[in-house]
């Protein structure tokens, strides 16, 4: 469970870093670059309660900026962003899958009766808009 969460955090951080890198690309117009950088920074700084919302906003900003992508962008920066965005989708599915498994296990009578879970908090699904930009 912790592993899945760590993978999701890693994927989100990688995407934010890739977006900041892309925002620095001279091929991007200033306004779009500003919007992307602001969204990525907001996502990185967001507290626990706001992360899903800010990460979703970053997804939307990315789709708005890259559907279709500007011709002048450096291809490796663009690749890194699309791969990283796809990674967020993968990691989130795997994370929520692990949450489902854990929650199902915690519901079982035996686990509840014997308090096998101790005082561990019930894990939460990470709900966000993770649709990557089309290529």
């Amino acid at each position, binding site marked *: 469970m912790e592993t899945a*969460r760590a993978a999701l955090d890693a994927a989100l951080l*990688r995407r934010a870093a890739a977006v900041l890198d892309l925002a620095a690309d001279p091929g991007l117009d200033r306004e779009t670059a500003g919007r992307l950088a602001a969204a990525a920074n907001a996502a990185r700084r967001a507290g626990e309660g706001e992360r899903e919302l800010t990460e979703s906003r970053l997804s939307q900003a990315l789709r708005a900026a890259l559907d279709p992508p500007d011709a002048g962008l450096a291809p490796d920066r663009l690749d890194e962003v699309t791969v990283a965005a796809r990674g967020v989708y*993968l990691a989130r599915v795997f994370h929520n*899958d692990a949450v489902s498994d854990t929650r199902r*296990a915690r519901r079982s009578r035996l686990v509840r009766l014997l308090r096998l879970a101790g005082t561990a908090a019930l894990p939460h699904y990470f709900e966000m808009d993770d649709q990557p930009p089309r290529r």
Partner: protein
Amino acid sequence: MTRARTPSGTPDATPQADGSGMRVGIVCPYAWDVPGGVQQHVGDLAEALGAMGHEVSVLAPVGDPDHRTPPYLVPAGRPVPVPYNGSVARLSFGPRTAARVRRWIAEGRFDLLHIHEPAAPSVSLLACWAADGPIVATFHTSNPRSRAMAASSGALRSALEKINARVAVSEAARRTLVEHVGGDAVLIPNGVSVRRFAHAEPLPGWPGRGGSIGFLGRLDEPRKGLATLLEAFSRMAPHRPELRLLVAGPGEADLSGVPESLRHRVVLPGRLDDADKIRAYHSTDVFCAPNLGGESFGIVLTEAMAAGAAIVASDIPAFGAVLDGGAAGELFRVGDADHLAERAAALLDSPERRAGLSEAARVAVRAYDWDTVAADIAHVYETVLTSGEGADAGVRLDGGRRSSGAPRRAHPRLRGERS
């Protein structure tokens, strides 16, 4: 082996940069020496990953000891035929196989296991039980009422909880998984090695002047839909004196529905080797995929597309999706021989239409090329390995009670094998 693992805490290091050289153990539940969609998938995936610089070992049952196997294959024992998921699967199970699975895991020192069809009561389920560490699983079955999946769901669930990442090869396969065991899976379609199928000489004597229709697949599996094609042929053949049918694949074909006078025009070359199979796709004017359902993806269909065949296929959802809703191949109502005969006849009469479909199929199949698909799968591996403690140790044997497979109490000798 050489993979520099990202320590947790510095997760923003890009795994792509150092992700080459993963040691991957792939488990295939079905007999390697019998052709099938899953075996083909595993073989192509292993080769594509190898070409990307990863070390791959494949564990699969092998029935015929003389069968030529690729260097990455590790035999897991003799398979037995078992009716499974509406067809006959050749699977391996039991304590001896379990011992081999455990040895393979112990000696392989894998970074990650990739288990195909973990629900299949074969080496896949055994590997799920025996292993501990990063596990990716791919689900191929699409069957809304899979009794095997429903019956084994208890044992299956305990095995599935070990899986870090689930992949489904089609929307239908994903739905089957969600309905039977819950959770979710990412969708990564099957790949086809487009280059391998693109060019080949037709088999000698084909396609002939009078028109020809092709079929490939096991002949004795009802869900492959051969009966529908034979019925359609019986209706068309009297009006087309030179029309021939090429029906290639292992198994006994039931020709009782075809009138005696037409049977000599149904050509049965039996099971073809890989090279002849590719030639078969190039040998007929029209290629037919009459499957009745239960087909999660239709690897035969994408191969025919890669060969640039003019295709007429049943309109089951998986085929409709692959053929772009009919733009890359004609669709007919599933199981409807009249409709199939009508569509096939129209194609036989129009070389222009066939050329158009052939071109469209070659374009549409690019999305399913193995290079694209294997990169996506490798990304899944990296996502699983990027994080945390489990990844550092790679795949180990599970010391738990359920780890030894069929016998609940682990045999002391199996235990002793832990290195």
